[in-house]
Structures are given as structure tokens and as C-alpha cells.
């Protein structure tokens, strides 16, 4: 596949993540704009940090909700962190799932919070998959000597 085709495929894929499915919001574009010749790996670095951080938080949440006496303050603190990170990178659906999660923490509703955890995990793995695909497409373009196209979305 030649570079132009790969670039078009990347643009279409990225746009679908934003427009059709709301996986990402405008904050992700902010991250892309912070990447330049002097910081060519900024997006990959931040996204990798997000993956590591989120997986740790999801493990902590699983353990915290598995206790006989659930400490909802602790659960809420973890969800607050995850909400913050997902918001900062533009992972909109993860962020929204965290917002719902927090309201059930406040109610100390064990069943609802367990459901929320499943929801957040699902959204996280979905966006992780999308981001990995996008980054792979970018890598292929760069490897073929092309540049990563800037996405114009008119937010």
C-alpha cells in the first residue's frame, strides 16, 4: 500500500473514532498538536503512560471492590484518578463511564459499582484497541517515509 493510501486510511479511521463513536474527544487533538519534530514521540509516550496507569488502577479497583467491607472512599479515589487521566488524553467514553461510577460510589451501591467497573473496563479495552490500531497505522506511514496527516475536525 502506498503512503497516500495509508494516510487516507489513517485519517478515515481517526475521524470515525471521533465523530461516529465518541471514543476520543477534542483533548486528543491537543495531544497531537503538542507533538512536533523536537517531541516526535509525545503521543505514544502519553498514551503508553495512560495504558500502564489505567491497568494498575483497574487492578486496584477490582481488588478494592472484592473486599468483604468495601472502602468506597478508596474506590472513589481510584476512579477519580482514572477519570482525570482519561479526560486528559481525550478518552471520552472512559471518562463518562468514570463519572457514572463515581455517583454510585457516593451512594455506596455495591451492585451498581461492580457493574460500573465492568463498564469502565470494557470502555478502556475498546479505546486501547483503537489507539493501538491508530498508532500502528502512524508507524507504518512513518516507516514508509510519509508524514502523519493533521486531522481537521472543526470542533
Amino acid at each position, binding site marked *: 500500500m502506498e503512503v497516500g493510501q495509508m494516510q487516507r486510511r489513517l485519517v478515515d479511521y481517526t475521524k470515525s473514532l471521533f465523530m461516529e463513536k465518541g471514543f476520543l474527544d477534542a*483533548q486528543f487533538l491537543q495531544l497531537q*498538536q*503538542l507533538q512536533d519534530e523536537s517531541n516526535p514521540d509525545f503521543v505514544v509516550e502519553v498514551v503508553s*503512560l495512560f495504558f500502564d*496507569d489505567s491497568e494498575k488502577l483497574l487492578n486496584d479497583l477490582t481488588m478494592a471492590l472484592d473486599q468483604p467491607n468495601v472502602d468506597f472512599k478508596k474506590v472513589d479515589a481510584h476512579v477519580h484518578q482514572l*477519570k*482525570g*487521566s482519561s*479526560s*486528559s488524553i481525550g478518552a471520552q467514553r472512559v471518562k463518562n463511564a468514570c463519572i457514572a461510577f463515581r455517583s454510585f460510589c457516593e451512594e455506596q451501591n455495591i451492585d451498581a459499582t461492580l457493574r460500573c467497573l465492568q463498564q469502565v473496563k470494557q470502555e478502556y479495552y475498546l479505546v486501547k484497541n483503537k489507539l493501538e490500531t491508530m498508532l500502528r497505522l502512524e508507524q507504518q506511514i512513518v516507516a514508509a517515509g510519509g508524514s502523519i496527516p493533521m486531522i481537521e475536525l472543526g470542533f
Partner: protein
Amino acid sequence: MLSCGGGSGSCSKDMAVELGDEPHVLAVDDNLIDRKLVERLLKNSSCKVTTAENALRALDYLGLGNDTLEGTVSEVNMIITDYCMPGMTGYELLKKIKESSVLKEVPVVIMSSENIPTRISQCLEEGAKMFMLKPLKQSDVKQLKWHLMKCRN
């Protein structure tokens, strides 16, 4: 979104900062991703950046902590801190800075993911120069720096 003390157009004299070529900013946030983001945003606005992962480490760095080593106190031109942090909050950090005769003139900016008017006014009343809503964008940081430079004289 930015909120400034004293109304959106004004700034008090003590916001004047000796910025020189590259202001040195201390950024405090317990979230790793947010620290990386704020650092890049500030560097893109030609600031020298030091990050701290909590208020206690920030106080040590500023020379106000219990564990500050002799001769390691660093000069900062501005402090930007998250509000919600475990242990000491950004608000409590702000108070400690304002209580210090050495550091009270250093502008402090508070960031938060939550838009709570009472929280905002509480911080501004305690002497925060600005309150910024997360997630931060390049335009927020550029505006922040412009505002600080404008008040220089």
C-alpha cells in the same frame, strides 16, 4: 477556562514576575499523565519546568518542607498545582506558600477537573492568581503566560 483574582481584566501589582528569558515553573500534580501534559504545555510556552508528585515534595523543593536539605532551595517564578491531591491538597499548599515570607509573592495557579464555584472563590480569596479547569489546553497555558508577562510592569 480561566478565572483570575480581581476580575478578568485586572491584575494586582504583586503578580509582576521577573520572568527573564525562561520562567521557572513548579508544577504539582499526583496524576502522572497530567504531570506529563502540563510539563509539555509549559515547555511549549518557553518555561523551564520542575514537577512534583505531591504537596509535601513541592514544599521540600521550595524550601518550606521538613526534609529540605541545606543549600537545595530553588527559585521558582510560578507554581501551578492540582487542587485534589492525597495528603495535602492544592488549597493547603497554597496557604502554606502564602504564609511564607519568602514565597508569598510567587504567583500560584490552581487547577481542577471540577468546576465548583465555591472552590474557585475559596482559592482566589486565599491568594491564588488563577484557577484553571482541567484538562488543560495549549490556549490556557499561553493565556496564563501572557497574563503574567502583561503584569510584569
